[in-house]
């Protein structure tokens, strides 16, 4: 009888380093500068602007700064990441309403947390599994992000505003502030 041999693992993914530490949370959003990271998906700008307006009215943030990714399907480039980390106190990033961009939005959230910036990443609810899978790949299983109701791309301005209002409590919760 031939010698017995073990079956080989075809994945090559030995357990990578895990780091699931969140950045320190602010006591309140009052007076903070909020970075809005637009991934360029249709209606993302509008959604983030509505969220920024509500954060100003209800939570007294000092300012928002809108940033734009050059491509929605991959995480934010290092230069833009550095710039945002330097310029704002917390970040809201949207909108992960597709396969690659849902994962990239969650990866962005994790990148900011690891640089000490609290981040609320927003996907659409069809893509929660993709976001969770990405968090695992990034060594941050269970990373907390939120979702707006799918779809986003086909909404008119009034509907985008409804989505913003609906997701606001979740954003505030993730940023660690009492509603």
């Amino acid at each position, binding site marked *: 009888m031939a010698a017995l041999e073990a079956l080989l*693992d075809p994945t*090559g993914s030995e357990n990578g380093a895990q780091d699931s530490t969140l950045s320190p949370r602010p006591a309140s959003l009052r007076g903070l500068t909020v970075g809005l990271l637009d991934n360029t998906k249709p209606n993302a700008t509008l959604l983030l602007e509505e969220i920024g307006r509500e954060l100003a009215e209800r939570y007294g943030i000092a300012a928002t700064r809108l940033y734009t990714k050059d491509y929605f399907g991959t995480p934010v480039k290092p230069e833009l990441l550095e710039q945002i980390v330097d310029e704002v106190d917390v970040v809201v990033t949207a909108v992960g309403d597709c396969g690659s961009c849902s994962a990239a939005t969650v990866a962005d959230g994790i990148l900011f947390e690891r640089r000490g910036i609290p981040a609320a990443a927003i996907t659409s609810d069809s893509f929660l599994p993709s976001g969770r899978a990405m968090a695992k790949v*990034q060594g941050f299983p269970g990373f907390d992000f939120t979702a707006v109701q799918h779809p986003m791309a086909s909404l008119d301005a009034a509907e985008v505003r409804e989505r913003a209002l609906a997701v606001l409590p979740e954003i505030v919760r993730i940023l660690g502030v009492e509603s």
Partner: protein
Amino acid sequence: MGADIATVPEVDESRLREVLEYYWAKDWTDGLPVVPVTASYLEEFLATVARDPEEVLFTIHHLNRSLTVRLAAINAALAGCKPEYFPVVVAAWEAIAKEPHPARGIWQSTTGTAPFLVVNGPIRERLGINSQGNIFGAGFRANATIGRAIRLGCINVFGLQAHKLDQATQGTPAKYSAVIGENEEQSPWPPLHTEYGFDAADDVVTAYVIRSVVHIEARHAMTPQQLALDLADTIRRTGSLIHEYTSALLVLVPEHAALFAEAGWSKDDLREFVFRHATRRREELEAVGKDAVSHKTRWRLPKDHPDSMPDSASSSADPATVHVLSHPTSVQIVVAGANNAGVSAVVEVFTLNPPRPLPFSYSRIQASA
């Protein structure tokens, strides 16, 4: 290992199934059974190429994953490849690595694209890569398993599992396997790989990232113009338009290629003709809500969408005519299929913004000496 078909093997059925079930339980398959792989079997694959097993063939940085020669070999063996197919698999991964979309997350996308490989050169004959009847169908081990080796690598190494990181809304049957040989022997034109400067005797893999394979029924076309217009009509179909522009690989059967060649058309003549005729009237795009583009992603959408802006054609000399191809070379041409009917195909090639002039990448197949 050659199979002895004179004797019917006797097997330990429950042990065999136990092994196959192990792979299913680990999610290390595309849903079909795989071939068990051990270190000694892996060695047979690695021996076919002059490569360091730890050499990285393809990395998707944002997924923190890299595919090495060793992992490519394990997955090729799992897929049912013979060891001698492995040089083709290595070249296929190299070609895929040169494509811009796979490294940028396209295989996580709802779009649901698949790798599509064309093999040229004498190796088709040596390995039995089908280039004639039923090229997109089942029945040929080399075609079936070389493509599957790529799929299993995507699933296992890059974690592109359906419902998780792979969020394809519907996907395509090509995601199981999509490999064809060019029917060089029955083509009136020089083989595809000679267009990029290779010798006809070289073995080359060309990789595309595709959406659909759409058939063209044209059994009775009498002039090259008729057939070329039929091809152009499929390329410009509104349903496939996602971005401003698209690209296509025409997979022509020998009979169709002959219709062009006998009328004196070169591949470039055909490209040029299709390019000129692959247009839509603006009102046709308006009717289907694709007459404008989004500001940043430049996806086609209706002009009353909140994110809309005019497309490029709107500021051209003829705003009522919208070209769906950006370059004549957006049309690629290969000859494959049986020489038995006028049934060709348009393979719709995924096209980002801005579009590339040449919508494919290629790599030479190199076996160990």
